[in-house]
């Protein structure tokens, strides 16, 4: 156990540290994009953006945007040496065919066996939108999720079974949160490390058996 809960930046740094050298990686929209800031150039990690590019660089500097070159969040980005462009069907074939090593996603809920809910709160008046989330969930060799462990109302977001509509079944392999990191799999959630709390405290707050 470390002394205090992790910030989003610390979570992103932890994710970055666990990405093997030379991996091909897709970072989901939102918090996962922060992982890029913690990847060093000599890691050889190559970023994929599902709108058709490998070798994506950082956001474009203000005033230097090229609106033909954007990421999945439609922000202007840049191109690194060794990049490649391809069309949408090829890009998702790459993803769905299992060629990406890692994708990093946010989540509303994750189950102990790795089910993911991150596209829809299930609220009746919500306009649904899925984008590439379901494709990413089933496509990458490893799916990492980063999120806070508890919702604002205090309810756990790591659960026995997701109550929100699912994005994918048994797809999340590792869960990075402010309070702990977990390995997920068919046998349940394995607690790897805690931050600002103890395993016993955490198991109680979560109401889960952690294997």
């Amino acid at each position, binding site marked *: 156990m470390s002394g205090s809960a992790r910030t989003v930046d610390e979570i992103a740094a932890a994710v970055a540290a666990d990405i093997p050298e030379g991996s091909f990686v897709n970072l989901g929209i939102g918090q996962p994009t922060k992982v890029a800031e913690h990847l060093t150039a000599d890691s050889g990690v190559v970023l994929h*953006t*599902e*709108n*058709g*590019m490998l070798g994506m660089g950082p956001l474009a500097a203000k005033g230097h945007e*090229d*609106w*033909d*070159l*954007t*990421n999945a969040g*439609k922000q202007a980005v840049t*191109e690194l040496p060794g990049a490649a*462009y*391809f*069309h*949408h*069907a090829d*890009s*998702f*074939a790459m*993803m*769905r065919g299992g060629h990406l090593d890692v994708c990093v996603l946010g989540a509303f809920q994750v189950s102990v066996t790795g*089910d993911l809910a991150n596209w*829809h709160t299930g609220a009746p*008046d*919500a*306009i*649904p*939108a*899925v*984008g*590439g*989330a*379901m*494709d990413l969930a*089933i*496509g990458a060799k490893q799916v990492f999720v980063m999120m806070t462990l508890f919702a604002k109302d205090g309810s756990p977001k790591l659960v026995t079974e997701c109550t929100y*509509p*699912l*994005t*994918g*079944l048994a797809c999340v392999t590792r869960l990075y949160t402010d309070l702990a990191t977990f390995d997920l799999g068919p046998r349940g959630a394995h607690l790897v490390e805690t931050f600002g709390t103890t395993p016993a405290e955490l198991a109680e707050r979560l109401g889960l058996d952690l294997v």
Partner: protein
Amino acid sequence: MKVRFPESADEAVADVADGSTVLVGGFGPAGMPYALIDALIRQGATDLTIVNNNAGNADTGLAALLAEGRVRKVICSFPRQHDSWVFDGLYREGRIELELVPQGNLAERMRAAGAGIGAFFCPTGVGTPLAEGKETREIDGRTYVLEYPIHGDVALIGAHRADRAGNLVYRKTARNFGPVMATAADLVVAEVREVVEIGAIDPEVVVTPGIFVDRVVVS
């Protein structure tokens, strides 16, 4: 058949029929055929089904087409955006139909339409609400959902450059859905920044061969 080079975007979309399914390229502004969409607004076809990754932004382009009440149904992966108020309003009022499709399925279903594939078993969406009511099958220990082609009567796409044979190249991530949509519609209209002579695009780097392209306009 040989590609044509109409004088204007209006001429290029003059014969789009009411009730058409129109594939519209672009992912956000990148690759969006703005001039063709504006021409389609002026042209007047209605009862349209629009296929695009999104469902319009702010008050221009696709959103303007929606605002005019010309779209019966949107097939897309991500309608909800910070500036998708036109779609949001129509949807909440029950005045527009939505088929929400995972982005990879959107691309692959159009590819299937262009490639003569009748249907395909796909791993995306298994166990989720978007696979409800769909046929599933276990193949080699993995579960798949059966997905069907999305075919367009018309595709309106944005590209970077065309030659006089209709061969297209794109620029950076503006490529996105264009090459796939060009294979999946009966009538394919491309909006490009420039048209060059035959021979000025290296045959090795053509992304969309002219066989897929019916009309090209410069905008």
